[in-house]
């Protein structure tokens, strides 16, 4: 075998701490290496031309490039090989940047390790084989999980692009967190006025099938051919018959039901429609509070319903939808501030979250838009906002900035003044983070035009005094302690990953970070892709985002799906497991361990054998380490290839101990 080795300088990224010339010289001495050189930028056009010329001039069988991580440039170089007429899998990459030059400064040690990695790549390539991709048909339907503003945008863009869209929403109405907001920054326009038309578009779009009160149960299949099982949760109302007239809500005697939409500011009825603009505008029964469902008494809603839509015996139903791609837009949840003892830990009724305050401000909220504090219903005069509750605080495991709290706090301070001109707002903040178009100007307006007092410092405690709450904190700019007697304290709670995000990630086979936010494929260059082909991210499920960013991501994810579906067939990755039928004893151990259900039992001339379904196999390799007789081998990562790497690594004697 004739192998060419190209050692990249990557400017000074590699050459700064690795003697690349020496690595190339030493690589030339390795068995099977017919050519070795160093190159300034292997990925540049002259760099790639150099590889192509060497392949053609020397009739090379394979190429090793020692440069950066394969995450970015492996596809680049594979295409280079193809242009030179070689199979794209006769290529190995030795990562001497992220694994060598960027992690150590000892040039001698780095050079040695770089050579080790090159030798391993060469050894692996000598055992390599040409692999050919297969093509398969795809189903051009898309599943959008989550009906918040990001999911709505993604669904509308996909649908407008001509795709069939399945939109699954956990609650009984789409709209998400945005539908709970009164106004939006930095323009202070009405949230439901700008979201409402989009929600109506979803309902009316012929290409969108909406499953509200539904959750994704199970996902099988692979990019282009997913089978999604969706649980339609029992609402105890026949939604085909329900007209959303609201008569049932008026008559329902169980009026102390938890009002989730209004963030438990007030209560609602057991049968209810979430909010006036709900899409779909259908009633549903909260089984935890319905007297009929708990005690088998009452039944008033069934009596008053003009269309006989009430079905107390309704059961969860599972529907299966075939789709080709999935957009995840499951959003976020709010931090539980009761973890903070200094803010009362939930003991004081007049300490509320920013979302609860949003409902108090909203004209469609429980108070009709009149700010009344929870304890006695009085209008507050002095309002203290505390920022960074559950953000930028390592002590409670939330070191990240939630990003939008500075902005919504300023908005709420402005709205407070609008609602109650004689009120005074104070904001305790750590830093003001307002890096968006018109954002900083908006903060300044809150300070300068609306007279909001901004106090830079943290609050150390709250305590009740004469019916109000004394907020004691530090003013770090004045360098002294301040105490403010507040009628109402609003906590700017931060964002955290949605409840159940990790479970859904496992169903989708995507990864998530330490805080449960889904991992994008590349933080800068692939922000809406995941590492699972055909699964895309939009909105706050990937990290806290405000409305413009979420909408942007919704459109971006839709664009990615439209790109994916611009072809009628996709190519499968040939780096999958393959069963050597002679060796297979048909024990089925691989079938049991495969996390993807990619291995099936087949009858081969009367004998039981295993067979890998290429398109489902994700190339994880669990089966290959399970099979005792080595009958199942992951292509391009065969036992022989790995052993060749180990052998070459273990044979080398260290000239110098670096311990």
């Amino acid at each position, binding site marked *: 075998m004739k192998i060419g080795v190209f050692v990249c300088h990557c400017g000074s990224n590699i050459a700064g701490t690795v003697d690349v010339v020496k690595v190339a010289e030493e690589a030339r001495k390795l068995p099977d290496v017919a050519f070795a050189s160093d190159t300034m930028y292997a990925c540049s056009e002259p760099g790639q031309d150099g590889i192509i010329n060497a392949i053609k001039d020397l009739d090379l069988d394979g190429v090793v490039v020692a440069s950066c991580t394969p995450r970015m440039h492996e596809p680049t170089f594979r295409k280079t090989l193809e242009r030179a007429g070689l199979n794209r899998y006769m290529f190995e990459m030795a990562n001497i940047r992220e694994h060598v030059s960027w992690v150590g400064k000892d040039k001698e040690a780095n050079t040695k390790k770089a050579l080790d990695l090159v030798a391993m790549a060469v050894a692996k390539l000598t055992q390599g084989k040409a692999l050919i991709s297969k093509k398969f048909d795809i189903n051009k339907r898309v599943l959008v999980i989550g009906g918040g503003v990001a999911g709505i945008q993604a669904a509308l863009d996909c649908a407008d692009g001509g795709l069939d869209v399945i939109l699954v929403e956990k609650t009984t109405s789409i709209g998400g967190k945005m539908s709970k907001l009164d106004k939006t920054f930095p323009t202070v326009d009405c949230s439901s006025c700008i979201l409402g038309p989009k929600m109506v578009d979803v309902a009316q779009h012929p290409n969108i099938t909406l499953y509200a009160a539904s959750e994704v149960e199970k996902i099988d299949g692979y990019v282009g051919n997913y089978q999604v099982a969706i649980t339609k949760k029992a609402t105890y109302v026949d939604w085909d018959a329900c007209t959303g007239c609201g008569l049932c809500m008026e008559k329902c005697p169980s009026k102390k039901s938890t009002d989730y939409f209004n963030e438990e500011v007030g209560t609602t009825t057991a049968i209810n429609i979430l909010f006036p603009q709900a899409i779909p505008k259908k009633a549903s029964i909260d089984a935890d509070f319905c007297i009929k469902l708990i005690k088998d008494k009452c039944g008033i809603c069934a009596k008053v319903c003009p269309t006989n839509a009430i079905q107390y015996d309704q059961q969860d139903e599972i529907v299966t939808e075939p789709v080709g791609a999935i957009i995840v837009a499951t959003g976020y949840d709010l931090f539980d501030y009761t973890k903070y003892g200094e803010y009362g830990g939930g003991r004081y009724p007049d300490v509320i979250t920013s979302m609860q305050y949003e409902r108090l401000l909203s004209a469609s909220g429980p108070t009709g838009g009149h700010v009344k504090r929870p304890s006695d219903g009085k209008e507050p005069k002095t309002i203290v906002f505390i920022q960074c509750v559950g953000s930028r605080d390592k002590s409670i495991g939330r070191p990240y900035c939630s990003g939008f709290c500075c902005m919504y706090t300023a908005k709420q301070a402005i709205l407070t003044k609008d609602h109650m001109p004689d009120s005074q707002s104070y904001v305790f903040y750590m830093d003001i983070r307002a890096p968006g178009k018109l954002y900083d100007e908006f903060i300044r307006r809150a300070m300068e035009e609306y007279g909001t007092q901004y106090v830079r410092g943290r609050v150390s405690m709250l305590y009740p005094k004469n019916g109000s709450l004394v907020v004691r904190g530090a003013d770090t700019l004045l360098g002294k302690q301040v105490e403010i007697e507040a009628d109402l304290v609003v906590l700017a709670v931060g964002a955290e990953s949605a409840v159940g995000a990790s479970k859904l990630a496992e169903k989708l086979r995507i990864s998530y970070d330490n805080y449960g936010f889904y991992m994008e494929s590349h933080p800068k260059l692939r922000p809406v892709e995941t590492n699972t082909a055909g699964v895309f991210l939009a909105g706050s499920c990937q990290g806290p985002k405000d409305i413009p960013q979420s909408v942007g991501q919704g459109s971006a994810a839709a664009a990615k799906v439209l790109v994916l579906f611009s072809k009628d067939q996709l190519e499968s990755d040939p780096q999958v497991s393959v069963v050597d039928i*002679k*060796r297979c004893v048909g*024990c089925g*151990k691989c079938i049991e*361990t495969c996390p993807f259900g990619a291995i099936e039992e087949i009858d081969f001339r009367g004998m039981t054998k295993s067979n890998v379904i290429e398109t489902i196999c994700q190339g994880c390799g669990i089966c290959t380490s399970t099979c*005792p007789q080595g009958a199942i081998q992951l292509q391009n990562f*065969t036992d*022989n290839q790995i052993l060749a790497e180990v052998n070459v690594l273990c044979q080398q004697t260290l000239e110098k101990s670096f311990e």
Partner: protein
Amino acid sequence: MQYLNELKEKIKENLPELDMVVGWEQGFDSLRASPLFMRTEDDVDKMIWGPLCVHNLATYLPSLKGKKVGVVVKGCDSRSVIQLLQEKLIKRDDIMVFGLPCTGVVSLRKIQDNLGSLDYIESTEVDGDSLNITVDGTNHAFKLEDVAANKCSRCQYHNALLSDVFIGDPITEEAEDEYTDVDEFEDMSLEDRMAFWVSNMSRCVSCYACRNACPMCVCRDHCVAQSRDPHWITQEDTVQNKWFFQMIHSMHLAGRCTECGECERACPVGLPLLLLKRKMNKEIKELFAYKAGTLIDAKTPLLSFKVEEDNINERGW
């Protein structure tokens, strides 16, 4: 030879429906038993039963796949049958299990250690708890428990756990197996343990009798030990290679090994091979609370996939 006549009757009764029944007969001398493949009633009459029936006959079952086979099992052997069934290496409909209660089998190696040589056995008699062997004109009496296999002293499963026909009265006494032998070995220093295995592995003759006798070793012709593709092990005669093979064997048996001790019994140079496998099983027991070969419907922990294991905290954050 308690229960032998009843066993023979039962086998004869069922023989017409079976291709064969595997049991034991006397081997080339009175001490050594040998596996017996019974196809006719005359064959059945040759059968023996008792502490000399050391072999685990379940080992033959995978290679007789497709035939209707009866097999005579002791308690420990039955675990191998269960594990084979669980792993779908044999079919339940194809086998008929004749189970017996067993009070223990002898270790020929222990007897040899006492006698020096086993080459001149003239007669062997089992009488209750004692064993009388006449060698070269001299009678040697042993208490059975002194020459019993190590596995018998910690036996939890005297009675066959799985049987279509059970002969005899079940034994109710059970010993606890706390893996004390493994603990004791692990108390040795790392250097001593290394020296122990180096010295033992240097005696290995790479005959693969351990593998061939193992009921759970089903790769046979495709064993990685002798394969060039994938080329895991070279044929070089080195301690490393031999030890590497034993390590692979142990890893392949982790949570599958039913601890029948056939590897150790078959080893011509007496290597303590079961210790390696018991170490793995001890870990499996502690981590997954699982014991191989006790339930057909169970799943061997290392042969199944779970996103999150109950006892492995992969998300310590």
